[in-house]
């Protein structure tokens, strides 16, 4: 761990040593180091292998801008070593190299295979023979890439959060200009958020919330998502200030990707922030004073400067100052090549405008510092609706138009204007070797030339063909070089070539941070604890956690037929509709009548849309003249309440809606001995004469005030008991105790499905879909077209009443014992799909397979035979239109 003496403003704490591993080898670092600075101090120069050619890549920007130092940390790929702070015990590993970073067999693609891997090679070279493509694909996928995600993650240990933040002003970028803008806004009493991704600490600013080490990902309709550690801040602001700075650009020359070629900013950051000497003997190539200032600073820090190539013809004051130190400054010179095998060992310089070996000069060095000018970081601004134009003087695209409430300050807005600089040529020294335009995707200057020759002559097409700008750097290092090369090859101006579209995310972001916190709200009934104690299989049913069965659905169903069963139906939607107009309101919402329902009686209802399609169903009990108790399906509870209140908002009838779904629990007690069991717990006369089928009565059960509905969803004598949810376990326990000697069993959702199927009671959403009408679903009797008043769905239903539907819902039985899959196809004589199976079960009481299906109308009569194709298995089913069990309802009414 070799370090320079104390640097002013260094970020490391030399008093505290942190230990981590790189590829299993122990590395020592100081607190405040990044993985990149620590490894560099440890002597490492190769940090990654490139995407396609597996060339060595080393630190270039030291600011998280380029792809060269991407590693995996604790198994998570895609981490930039140069910005990742060191932590004790962290496990850092290289990516994309086998067997190791320092000897990678796939390097052969660079040495011998280049002519087989031009842009789009996977469409050309490895296509034939066709049948070998799967093999090629496997090899190519293995060879390329930026790491491997673990296939399985036993548990998501990393918890991430969303945070919504509303502010008056958001300032993106915490440099000098950003800090100043934030302070100015805060002085106007604005609520300000300042977002900064850099390593430098920012002093608190009164009235400003500072999000440090946080990256803005994009701009979405006024919301800026900001990734910080384990939080995704979603920041909505009235005004957006962009202080995103400018990005130092590399130069395109032969071997410009060799380890040891570093941007001037990167070399300075290593030295000044982490006290790591970037090299011992440097050659500097620059297009402006930036490189010259860097040379002076590096020289001060003890780096020998072998030569400086300044692209400008004139000798600036900074150049004269370097000359005075005895440093050779070659004006009008450019870098043509970097030489070296594992890292830089020489730089080839030459004068501009003259070619040939005679004028070229090789200078020994172990560091090449380049500065190719700056490109304003306009990506987020472009996403917000700003426009840019090409500035020929500065050789880059600059802001032109800004949308309302968006401002740009600092370098992104051109604060560096006025500096004299030279615009570099698109490529230099092409004869010396590969010149990389795009480091992420290994796209060379020659590849862009080839893509133009093949007809991909616009920047957007070339981008898609060569994948230039599509890598992890998102165009930071390659957009401008690619546009310059494109202009050169097509003979257009840079303005004509234009830029590629800026899209989020602007920085690499883990998928987990976008997913946010795992949020799966579960509803549980007040009796849920009892189901668990009874060993129920608990499954999701919509938002609910429900008892699917208690171990033996067949036996549970049989218990309902032979003795009694108890099921928790608290999930049903429960709406109180109350007011002088309540009856008329329901008459308008349902195809059948409710205004003539006697108090204390129950009627089944199907809600239809104005298109005549089934929306939901349930039972309605008239409690008194003005009050109706409406139940809905479990999954439809919310939607029905919305539907009712929507129409009420328009009709303004004298009706109040109260949603009681969460406040009430309900159980269904059913079976031949249900009457005895209920009678034991209530004073109510439960005789068949006093408490008839479809009666609804208020009574006290086990001391609890209940509404008891005598309905028969499962086909046996049944009582649906509704009561305040707080008494859930009490009522359940009382019923189970009273039934203990009478063979009562709790039954779950699955046996209930068997029981209701025996009665051909439809499940809305299971047996019906958004196209089903009451006529097709074999319930024409529910539609009362003779009602005087209008009702929702009337006009469509009048139409459907006269029209033969293409398919109808019927029951079927199968003799051979095979239970078809729900969704199996009904096929016609030619084998074409003509309908589908919606429900199928084995019925233990009937000892055969029963089901429901939509079949072509001509087959919708008793005795027809239809063919079911269940994943290729053909079977013949008998159509049945009347309930399989107790078709006349004698058991039910008894």
């Amino acid at each position, binding site marked *: 761990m070799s370090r320079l003496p104390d640097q002013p403003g260094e970020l490391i704490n030399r008093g505290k040593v942190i230990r981590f591993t790189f590829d299993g080898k122990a590395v020592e670092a100081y607190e405040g180091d990044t993985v990149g600075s620590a490894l560099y101090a440890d002597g490492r120069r190769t940090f990654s292998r490139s995407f396609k050619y597996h060339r060595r890549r080393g630190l270039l920007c030291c600011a998280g801008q380029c792809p060269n130092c991407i590693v995996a940390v604790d198994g998570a790929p895609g981490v930039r070593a140069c910005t990742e702070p060191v932590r004790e015990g962290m496990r850092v590993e290289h990516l994309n190299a086998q067997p190791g970073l320092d000897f990678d067999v796939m390097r052969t693609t660079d040495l011998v295979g280049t002519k087989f891997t031009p842009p789009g090679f996977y469409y050309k070279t490895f296509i034939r023979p066709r049948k070998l493509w799967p093999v090629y694909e496997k090899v190519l996928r293995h060879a390329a890439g930026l790491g491997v995600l673990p296939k399985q993650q036993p548990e998501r240990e990393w918890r991430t959060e969303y945070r919504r933040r509303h502010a008056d002003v958001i300032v993106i970028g915490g440099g000098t200009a950003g800090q100043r803008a934030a302070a100015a806004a805060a002085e106007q009493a604005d609520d300000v958020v300042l977002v900064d991704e850099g390593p430098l600490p920012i002093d608190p600013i009164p009235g400003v919330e500072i999000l440090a080490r946080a990256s803005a990902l994009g701009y979405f309709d006024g919301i800026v998502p900001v990734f910080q550690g384990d939080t995704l801040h979603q920041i909505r602001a009235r005004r957006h200030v962009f202080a995103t700075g400018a990005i130092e650009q590399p130069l395109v020359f032969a071997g410009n990707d060799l380890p040891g070629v570093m941007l001037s900013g990167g070399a300075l950051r290593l030295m000044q922030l982490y006290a790591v000497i970037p090299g011992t003997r440097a050659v500097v190539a620059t297009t402006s004073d930036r490189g010259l200032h860097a040379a002076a600073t590096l020289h001060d820090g003890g780096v020998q400067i072998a030569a400086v190539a300044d692209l400008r013809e004139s000798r600036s004051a900074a150049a004269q100052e370097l000359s005075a130190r005895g440093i050779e400054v070659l004006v009008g010179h450019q870098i043509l090549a970097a030489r070296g095998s594992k890292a830089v060992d020489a730089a080839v310089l030459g004068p501009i405008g003259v070619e040939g070996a005679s004028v070229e000069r090789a200078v020994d060095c172990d560091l090449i510092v380049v500065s190719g000018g700056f490109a304003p970081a306009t990506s987020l601004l472009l996403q917000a609706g700003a426009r840019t134009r090409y500035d020929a003087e500065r050789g880059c695209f600059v802001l032109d138009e800004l949308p309302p409430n968006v401002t740009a300050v600092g370098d992104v807005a051109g604060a560096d204007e006025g500096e004299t600089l030279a615009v570099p040529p698109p490529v230099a020294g092409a004869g010396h070797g590969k010149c990389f335009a795009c480091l992420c995707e290994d796209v060379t200057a020659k590849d862009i030339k080839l893509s133009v020759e093949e007809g991909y002559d616009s920047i957007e097409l070339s981008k898609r063909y060569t994948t230039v700008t599509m890598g992890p750097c998102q165009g930071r290092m390659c957009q401008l070089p690619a546009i310059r090369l494109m202009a050169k090859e097509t003979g257009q101006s840079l303005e004509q070539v234009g830029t590629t579209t800026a899209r989020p995310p602007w920085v690499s972001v883990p998928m987990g941070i976008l997913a946010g916190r795992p949020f799966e709200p579960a509803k549980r009934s007040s009796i849920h604890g009892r189901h668990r104690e009874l060993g129920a299989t608990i499954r999701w049913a919509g938002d609910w956690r429900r008892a699917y069965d208690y171990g033996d659905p067949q036996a549970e169903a049989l218990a309902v037929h032979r003795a009694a069963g108890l099921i928790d139906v608290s999930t049903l939607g429960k709406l109180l509709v109350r007011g002088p107009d309540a009856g008329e309101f329901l008459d308008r919402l349902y195809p059948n009548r409710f205004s003539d329902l006697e108090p204390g009686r129950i009627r089944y209802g199907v809600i239809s849309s104005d298109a005549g399609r089934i929306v939901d169903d349930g039972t309605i009990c008239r409690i008194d003249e003005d009050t109706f108790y409406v139940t809905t399906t479990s999954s439809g509870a919310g939607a029905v309440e919305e539907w009712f209140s929507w129409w009420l908002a328009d009709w303004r009838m004298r009706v109040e809606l109260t949603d009681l779904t969460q406040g009430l629990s309900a159980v269904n007690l059913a079976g031949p001995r249900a009457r005895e069991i209920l009678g034991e717990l209530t004073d109510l006369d439960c005789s068949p004469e006093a408490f008839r089928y479809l009666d609804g009565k208020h009574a006290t059960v086990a001391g609890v005030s209940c509404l008891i509905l005598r309905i028969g969803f499962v086909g046996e004598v049944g009582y649906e008991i509704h009561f305040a949810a707080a008494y859930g376990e009490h009522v359940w326990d009382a019923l189970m105790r009273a039934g203990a000697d009478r063979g009562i069993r709790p039954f779950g959702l699955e046996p209930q499905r068997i029981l209701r199927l025996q009665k051909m009671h439809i499940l809305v959403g299971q047996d019906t879909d958004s196209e089903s009408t009451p006529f097709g679903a074999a319930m024409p009797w529910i539609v009362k077209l003779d009602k005087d008043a209008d009702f929702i769905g009337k006009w469509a239903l009048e*139409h459907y009443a006269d029209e033969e539907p293409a398919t109808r819902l019927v029951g079927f039985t199968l003799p051979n014992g095979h239970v078809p899959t729900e969704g199996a196809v009904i096929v016609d004589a030619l084998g074409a799909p003509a309908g589908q199976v919606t429900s199928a079960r084995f019925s233990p009481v009937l000892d055969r397979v029963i089901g429901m299906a939509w079949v072509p109308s001509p087959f919708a009569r008793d005795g027809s035979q239809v063919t079911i194709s269940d994943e290729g298995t053909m079977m013949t089913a008998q159509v049945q239109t009347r309930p399989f069990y107790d078709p006349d309802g004698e058991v039910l009414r008894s």
Partner: protein
Amino acid sequence: MSFLLTCPNCGVREVTDFGYGGEISARPRARPTLRQLGQYNYFRRNAAGVQREWWFHRSGCRAWFIAERDTRTNEVLLIELPGEPGTVGPA
């Protein structure tokens, strides 16, 4: 899509708090022809501009209200509770 919406009862909320009921269209008052019924059920104006529409404060007071919104910019120009009965109808 992301913007702020003001519930007439609860105040300013994220749009994700609300359910969208679609543009306001009048339900036919008299028996429509099949074509008119099809228009009412399945066709929308889908205006690129200011549109009157239904919103439901699903994660709040659960009230339906009416907004006038520019569909191009998501700027909400007006918020109100439903006016005279029968003047509008859910689409």
